[in-house]
């Protein structure tokens, strides 16, 4: 697993994808930070994270689009699948590499808030809560992205497919607001909407059920990826 993780991290930086991701993420982060706090003269942190969530939905598929689709296209997966490594180890190696990239970028982004401490009173707990929430959402997105990339040989298909699924998960929240308040479906949608769950963090609650939700969605998609590979052997 470690060897695959290391190779994956390396490949982000020998190619352009790692740099493109970092530049986009950090530049957008900087811009949004300026707009939501400095220019708005506000020490409120959750606006920043809400915007970053939306942008992550579009940028994160960049990190995962190559994960498996490229291996499949270049036939290098045959090396991984005939090496004494478990499929779980292989999937986790790739998943963790993408997660490291995201966590690193998000951490650097969050350093912007140090500036804020000079000028205003920042609610540190709220900041950490938001940070953890976005990290969890990103982890979910990455799991989805890794899964979709295991289904196709084409990077572009993987990226677009990932975006579609992520936006669906996000969009459920919007559909929800159009439904009548007492409609039973609304309750279901509330449970599966990534965005609705994120809102609880934004509002300052550390909701254990949401934490569990993000973790479960991640585990489900990582497991599905493992199954894809397990099943492919039988085809």
């Amino acid at each position, binding site marked *: 697993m470690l*060897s695959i993780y290391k190779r994956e991290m390396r490949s982000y930086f*020998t190619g352009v994808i790692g740099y493109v991701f970092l530049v986009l993420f950090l530049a957008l982060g900087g811009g949004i930070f300026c707009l939501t706090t400095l220019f708005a003269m506000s020490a409120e942190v959750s606006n920043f994270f809400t915007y970053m969530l939306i942008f992550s939905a579009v940028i994160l598929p960049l990190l995962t689009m190559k994960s498996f689709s490229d291996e499949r296209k270049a*036939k*290098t*997966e045959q090396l991984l699948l005939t090496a*004494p490594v*478990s499929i779980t180890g292989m999937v986790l190696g790739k998943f963790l590499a993408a997660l490291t990239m995201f966590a690193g970028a998000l951490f650097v982004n969050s350093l912007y808030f140090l500036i804020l401490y000079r000028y205003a009173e920042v609610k540190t707990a709220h900041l950490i809560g938001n940070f953890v929430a976005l990290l969890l959402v990103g982890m979910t997105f990455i799991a989805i992205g890794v899964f979709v990339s295991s289904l196709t040989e084409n990077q572009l298909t993987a990226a677009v497919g990932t975006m579609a699924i992520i936006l669906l998960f996000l969009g459920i929240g919007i559909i929800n607001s159009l439904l009548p308040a007492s409609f039973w479906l609304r309750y279901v949608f509330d449970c599966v909407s990534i965005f609705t769950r994120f809102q609880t963090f934004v509002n300052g609650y550390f909701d254990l059920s949401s934490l569990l939700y993000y973790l479960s969605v991640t585990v489900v998609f990582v497991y599905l990826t493992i199954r894809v590979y397990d099943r492919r052997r039988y085809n």
Partner: protein
Amino acid sequence: MVKVENLVKRYGQNYALNDVSFEIGEGEIVGLLGPNGAGKSTTMNILTGYLSSTSGKAYIDGIDILEHPIEAKSIIGFLPEQPPLYQDMTVEEYLNFVYELKGCTFDREAHLNEIINVVKIADVRKRLIKNLSKGYKQRVGIAQALVGDPKLIVFDEPTVGLDPKQILEIRNLIRTLSKNHTVILSTHILAEVQAVCERVIIINHGKIIADEKTSELTRAIEEGYQYEVKICGPQRDVVSALEKIRGVKSVTATGERDSDAYGYVVESDKGIDVRKPVFNLCASKSWAILGMAPVGTDLETIFIRLVDRSNGQVPERKAQRRSAH
């Protein structure tokens, strides 16, 4: 070392492998021979754990590849049909990655250096794989299979796409490797099996149609000796003269013409070599011999016969022969 029992691989209604069984002992070097699409790659992919069989079992050194894949895979080195190379890595980085991937515990530097020297890629070790020529890429693929010093090495069509010089080099390399390893290689080139392998398993349409020592296979099929001879001389006289030679069973004119020479197939009784008498005869009559070559004893012909036999067809005569009588 390798034991395969009743292997079946089905894709929908099509059988890629249909009840294939064989055993390979330690230190053997075995060629898997068959036309394209015969099931060679499928067999190798199942042996190396890349694919699962529909039914049947495959054991590597007594370990079931399906039940204990990690243990089994750790003693196999595999070069797939297309070498699994990461284009964005240098040769050295790539081999280091494979070393870690396989979880080796040798002295890394010494082990990798040895492999690099064996497959002769020392001069490109710092170069990006994507910039290498096809021959070098193939060798890096072989190097990758050797990392971890696996007991069993599986090569899927190792010489495809290489130039004749490279083919010879790779064959020599495989022969060297077979001294310390069990080697299975697949190919659709008969000469390759003849040159490299001690034993040959011939597969067609997912079934084994022959499993014999390479030398025995050649001998077993020989039923009487046949030579194709090209002689300059009047056809009728030549035929009747040849037929009088002791040991000659039959003479047929092939109808082929090479300048003023005609082609004949001379068949002799088993164990009698008629080449010298034929030469002496022609010399005494001053008929020039433009060529003399054995017919039907090369693997090529044997293979075609075996394939036809397994298809249930009557063996087709290689050349149309016309009786001179």
